[in-house]
């Protein structure tokens, strides 16, 4: 018989109280682990989705505004590019130090060209990159897969009066319309989208690139670092982070994290209060027993130790089972929160067990101190 065994035996004597004490920790840690695990998975899912959503870095040729005029007469101005981008620049972009962070580098080429007698802007993009670069496009028909195929923006389709299966003639070549974009509210509504090589030919600029869109995975890294590195690799280019995308990504992730922390804190506080109340009640109920222990020579430290062992056992068992339940709950509900590949996050579970132990022991401090301070005579009224 030692203090540990005495504490363990007492738990079985007061099963319902032990269960009630443990329930607070179980629910608190279960909720914490479920939310922490879910938040972590949602963060990752949001990150993945936002990364899939599109680019966050735009690379264009460096330009300068040139004002045209004669004396006081202004003839407007024009932008003059210092240099041009080419397909070869993609290699330089992919060669930066943080190249592992680059999810996609997509070249675009814009050219104004004839389309069945109407002057329209053509957008060239590698056919296989369309899904990655513009995942939000909805197409009536099918996307382009090879040269000679085109997609029409909704306004362009209306202007040309063409639909899937139709043809458009430009530069002496006939292009087959594979699909029409649903309205996007963007400039591509009025464009013809074709394979990069086709538009470069129409614009008589083989290998030419108007701009690059880069999608960088930047969960924990400042996108500015990647921008700086690309700028260093392409001195003649203007490299800019699309701030809105970066900020909205960060805001969304932060919101999930704040929600998790807030809810967990409330539930943990309630759990701690339950421990405090039940252990205080237990001390009250066991006043006489504590008095007997003091009378037979238990020091105050031994009384403290007894109560801490009791709560320690409860905390360990309930926080471990709460952590398991939390993981299971997170696994079950994750698909309903947009997590496609739900997994088990061990770190919230381990943190939860440690937190549960801490919570239980912390909640025991005031009642244990009260118990240890009980005078043996006060405790044993019948003596």
């Amino acid at each position, binding site marked *: 018989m030692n203090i540990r065994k005495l504490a363990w*035996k007492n738990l079985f004597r007061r099963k319902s109280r032990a269960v009630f004490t443990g329930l607070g920790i179980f629910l608190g840690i279960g909720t914490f682990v479920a939310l922490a695990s879910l938040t972590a998975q949602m963060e990752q899912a949001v990150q993945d989705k936002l990364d899939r959503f599109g680019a966050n870095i735009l690379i264009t040729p460096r330009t300068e505004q040139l004002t045209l005029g004669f004396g006081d007469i202004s003839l407007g101005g024009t932008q003059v590019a210092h240099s041009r981008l080419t397909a070869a620049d993609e290699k330089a972009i992919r060669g930066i130090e943080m190249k592992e962070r680059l999810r996609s580098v997509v070249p675009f080429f814009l050219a104004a060209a004839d389309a069945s007698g109407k002057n329209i802007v053509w957008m060239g993009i590698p056919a296989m990159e369309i899904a990655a670069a513009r995942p939000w496009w909805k197409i009536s028909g099918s996307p382009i897969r090879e040269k000679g195929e085109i997609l029409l923006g909704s306004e362009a389709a209306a202007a040309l009066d063409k639909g899937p299966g139709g043809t458009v003639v430009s530069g002496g070549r006939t292009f087959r319309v594979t699909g029409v974009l649903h309205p996007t509210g963007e400039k591509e509504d009025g464009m013809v989208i074709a394979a990069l090589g086709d538009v470069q030919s129409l614009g008589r600029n083989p290998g030419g690139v108007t701009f690059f869109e880069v999608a960088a995975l930047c969960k924990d890294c400042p996108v500015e670092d990647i921008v700086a590195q690309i700028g260093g690799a392409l001195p003649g280019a203007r490299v800019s982070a699309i701030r809105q995308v970066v900020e909205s990504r960060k805001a969304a992730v932060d919101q999930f994290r704040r929600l998790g922390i807030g809810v967990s804190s409330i539930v943990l506080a309630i759990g701690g209060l339950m421990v405090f109340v039940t252990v205080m009640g237990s001390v009250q109920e066991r006043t006489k027993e504590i008095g007997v222990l003091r009378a037979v020579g238990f020091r105050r430290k031994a009384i403290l130790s007894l109560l801490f062992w009791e709560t320690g056992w409860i905390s360990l068992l309930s926080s471990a089972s709460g952590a398991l339940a939390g993981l299971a709950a997170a696994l079950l509900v994750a698909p309903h929160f947009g997590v496609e590949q739900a997994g088990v996050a061990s770190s919230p579970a381990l943190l939860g067990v440690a937190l549960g132990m801490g919570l239980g022991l912390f909640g025991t401090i005031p009642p244990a101190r009260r118990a240890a301070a009980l005078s043996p005579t006060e405790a044993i009224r019948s003596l």
Partner: protein
Amino acid sequence: MAAFIRLENVSMLYGNNGTRAVALRDVSLSIEAGEYVVITGESGAGKSTLLTILGGLQVPSSGAVLMKGVDLSSLSADRLADFRRETIGFIFQAYHLLPYLTARENVMVPMSPLRTSAREKAGRANELLTSVGLSGKEERLPSELSGGECQRVAIARALVHDPPVLLADEPTGNLDSSTGEQILDLFSGLHKRGKTVLMVTHNRANLFRATRAIRLQDGLVAKDDPLMAPYQAL
């Protein structure tokens, strides 16, 4: 030679000025080692208060308690706990056994904070249970024992550290007369083995075994009679 236990002008007051109750008034006593003292008196006479003060369970409002030359009021709470463990064995009227522990485990409770091996503790508990006539009942819970057997377990628990002093509060108060006699026989045996026994009781029949009887009345020592011989009526 100094007395084994000495009370010097001990008074004990409960409550505040509005509801003040005097439990002991200026009590002075000396008890020698090996005495078997029975403390009697009406309810409210101060018997239990005297016992708790003698056992270092509470500090008197005034006066001093010396045991083996040690002033109990000079000890810290933890030193006092050590002193109780080493010097005093308590036996309560209601046994105060822990209901979720077996007889053996109850006897082992005072040894729980010690670093002695479990085997050694169990051996000591078995030995004591045998000495109080409970051999073969070591694994029984208090609910599976009679009142007399529970009191025997409590006596075994009080003896676990082999204290020189036993303080008993109405140890036969919850028992029928036959079982009470058996328990008193145990106390007589312990006294014969050199223990100092101080027993609070209402029952004058308990006086037959004592060497001294102290009668309290309204917090004062009304009578303090050394008996002619042990185990003789007052």
